[in-house]
């Protein structure tokens, strides 16, 4: 089967980026926006066509989905086996990611036409969006771990550029820096992991690494370190990189601040695509994670995911900035995906967690992008991020209201929405594996419903406000993506995901687990009910409750002081103690020795420049003395 055209899926956004980037001062904003949207539409159509062709025209061969290499070229050749390739790898999860990235990116491109209208640097914005989309495509279709790493950094760069889009705002600049440094710090772990893995395995290639019958998994690698095999250590380090990108505790601190970027960017990068790269990484390397050392690393993944999802959900209940609530909600949901991967098995129905994680990734991308875009629409109308500036907006913005409501239902796991199906799969996978993780997941489901309806009621119901400018519904370019995404927040639930994506690629039959589903729905409804009582009409219950919790509330409101802890560690300990000694060494030893060499050169040249007198008899004297000295040396050398 020929998939070589898939090369154009990433290349079109790249060309658009170069075109808009070079001509961004010359083009009219309208033209730039049109070029961006058209370019991405082409990539999106190609992605959909690829998905159709892969799943339906080619389908399963011998009962499993095959891996195709659309295009491949050797980029750097180290040895016969170890070389870095650039190429396109097509398998179920990469194609699913292509569809997710294309869909969300296209929606955001269209939405931004309205949202960013009249902003200075509109063309720059579209150029960066294209750069991001290109990088994300490159990441998901990577044929080897090193290509993935390169694009991994590229999405980091484009995220940095887009968070810092309002570069005249100090908070945005600080947030961009923070996001870049924190993820870059985590990527150090990823890089070391790659180096260890490739050193011992002798290859970067996913197909060789992940082959369950392959030498690496069946034989293992002899070397071990501190009781675990080196491959396990490599996988742990790679998970650190994934945790940084996916904002897992304790590397999550950048994500809430990243909300300084334009809202569509938050929807695209910090909700739907880039932040799930960590989940995708674990899913991509899943056979290694599962088979090496009996899935030891997966245990870590599961507990980190479960803890983050709980931790973030609790914080989300107390935040007042709607985008921050959504950011914490994203962290919580990504924690869900991680825990699902962590509890997953490999063969057939055992691999329920894997499939559930990918399923949730898909549905979450849709409804979370919708929530962000809806929030963007509200912010566009009210000119504020804070919940206290909003209220009673349902009268002014009917479409935003309805679509936001659908998304909130979906994330709360209300029956017949897509979130209901994917959450149910995750919870049943967790239930089979670990009761503790299951109950954490269930509790988080309740919290999710609560905080989501907290913001829903606060924005669209609650107390009537008097607005300086009467809010009005957003333009068509913004409402159409909202409506499309609202459909996509419900429809994907009815796809039989397990037919397409499973750990062993064979597919299996997944059923709704009714007792668990009903428990989850009831928990979600309780959350919604509590939010209804608290926030439907203005009252003082929330205040009373927060007073009852007192210190705990303040603690949570300040995000458990994790940021302060980081600042303390970096500023007080690292900057003052560690960096100060390095700075001393740099100044006193390295700088001074360099300055010393320079001074010595100047001084000695001052001395010897007198030899250059211009008197040729002096030169002759030196020449003759030298000649005599040489003669004497050779005569008496022995």
């Amino acid at each position, binding site marked *: 089967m020929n998939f070589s055209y898939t090369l154009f899926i990433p290349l079109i956004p790249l060309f658009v980026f170069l075109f808009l980037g070079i001509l961004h001062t010359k083009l009219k904003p309208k033209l730039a926006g049109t070029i961006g949207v058209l370019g991405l539409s082409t990539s999106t159509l190609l992605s959909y066509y690829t998905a159709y062709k892969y799943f339906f025209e080619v389908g399963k061969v011998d009962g499993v989905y095959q891996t195709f290499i659309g295009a491949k070229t050797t980029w750097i050749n180290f040895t016969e086996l170890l070389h870095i390739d650039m190429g396109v790898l097509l398998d179920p999860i990469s194609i699913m990611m292509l569809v997710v990235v294309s869909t969300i990116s296209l929606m955001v491109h269209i939405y931004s036409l309205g949202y960013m209208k009249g902003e200075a640097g509109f063309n720059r914005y579209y150029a960066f969006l294209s750069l991001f989309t290109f990088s994300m495509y490159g990441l998901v279709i990577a044929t080897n771990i090193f290509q993935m790493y390169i694009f991994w950094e590229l999405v980091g760069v484009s995220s940095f550029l887009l968070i810092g889009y309002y570069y005249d705002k100090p908070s945005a600049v600080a947030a961009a820096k923070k996001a870049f440094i924190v993820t870059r710090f985590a990527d150090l772990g990823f890089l070391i992991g790659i180096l260890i893995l490739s050193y011992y395995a002798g290859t970067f290639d996913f197909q060789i690494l992940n082959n369950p019958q392959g030498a690496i998994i069946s034989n293992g690698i002899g070397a071990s370190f501190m009781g675990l095999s080196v491959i396990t250590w490599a996988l742990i380090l790679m998970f650190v990189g994934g945790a940084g990108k996916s904002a897992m505790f304790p590397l999550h601190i950048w994500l809430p601040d990243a909300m300084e970027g334009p809202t569509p960017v938050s929807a695209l990068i910090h909700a739907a695509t880039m932040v799930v790269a960590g989940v995708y990484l674990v899913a991509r390397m899943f056979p290694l994670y599962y088979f090496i050392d009996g899935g030891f690393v997966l245990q870590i993944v599961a507990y980190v995911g479960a803890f983050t999802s709980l931790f973030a959900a609790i914080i989300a209940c107390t935040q007042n900035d709607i985008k921050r609530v959504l950011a914490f909600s994203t962290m919580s949901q990504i924690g869900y995906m991680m825990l699902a991967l962590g509890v997953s098995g490999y063969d057939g129905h055992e691999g329920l967690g894997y499939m559930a994680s990918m399923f949730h990734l898909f549905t979450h991308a849709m409804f979370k992008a919708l929530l962000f875009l809806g929030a963007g629409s509200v912010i566009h109308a009210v000119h504020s991020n804070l919940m206290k500036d909003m209220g009673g907006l349902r009268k002014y913005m009917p479409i935003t209201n309805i679509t936001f409501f659908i998304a909130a239902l979906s994330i709360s796991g209300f029956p017949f929405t897509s979130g209901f199906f994917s959450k149910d799969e995750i919870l049943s996978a967790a239930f089979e594996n670990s009761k503790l993780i299951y109950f954490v997941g269930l509790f988080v489901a309740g919290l999710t419903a609560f905080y989501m309806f907290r913001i829903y009621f606060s924005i669209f119901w609650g107390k009537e406000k008097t607005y300086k400018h009467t809010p009005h519904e957003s333009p068509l370019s913004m409402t159409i993506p909202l409506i499309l995404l609202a459909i996509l927040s419900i429809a994907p639930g009815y796809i039989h995901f397990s037919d397409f994506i499973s750990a062993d690629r064979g597919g299996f039959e997944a059923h709704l687990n009714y007792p668990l589903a009903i428990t989850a729905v009831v928990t979600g409804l309780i959350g919604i009910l509590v939010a209804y009582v608290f926030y439907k009409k203005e009252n003082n219950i929330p205040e009373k409750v927060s007073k009852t919790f007192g210190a705990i509330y303040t603690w949570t409101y300040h995000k458990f002081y994790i940021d302060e802890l980081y600042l303390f560690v970096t500023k007080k300990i690292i900057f003052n103690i560690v960096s100060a000694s390095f700075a001393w060494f740099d100044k006193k030893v390295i700088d001074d020795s360099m300055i010393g060499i320079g001074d010595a050169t100047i001084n000695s040249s001052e001395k010897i420049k007198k030899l250059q007198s211009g*008197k*040729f*008899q002096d030169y002759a*004297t030196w020449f*003759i003395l030298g000649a005599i000295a040489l003669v004497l040396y050779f005569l008496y050398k022995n």
Partner: protein
Amino acid sequence: MISGISIYHILTLTTILFFIGIYGFITRKNLIAILISIELILNASVVNFVIFNTYLYPDMLQGVFFSIFIIAIAAAESALAVSIIVSFYRMLASVDVKDTETLKY
């Protein structure tokens, strides 16, 4: 071969001659005198060529040829040097070696 005079005597003579030339080259102030000192050095080496040829390889002639060759070159070199000195004199009205320092710049 000259009876009664060994090669060492003549080599001593040419060495003295050579170093007189060197000494003159370094210490003289007059450019003409320096040129004459160079001639002394050349002459010392010419004599050496002839002497080595006569004492060590009496049936060969290369040393003699070389000495003629050197004399020819010395003549050409003297002509060149004198013309430089003349033009130098025209420029500065002096043949003192100290004034040649101005050529440095």
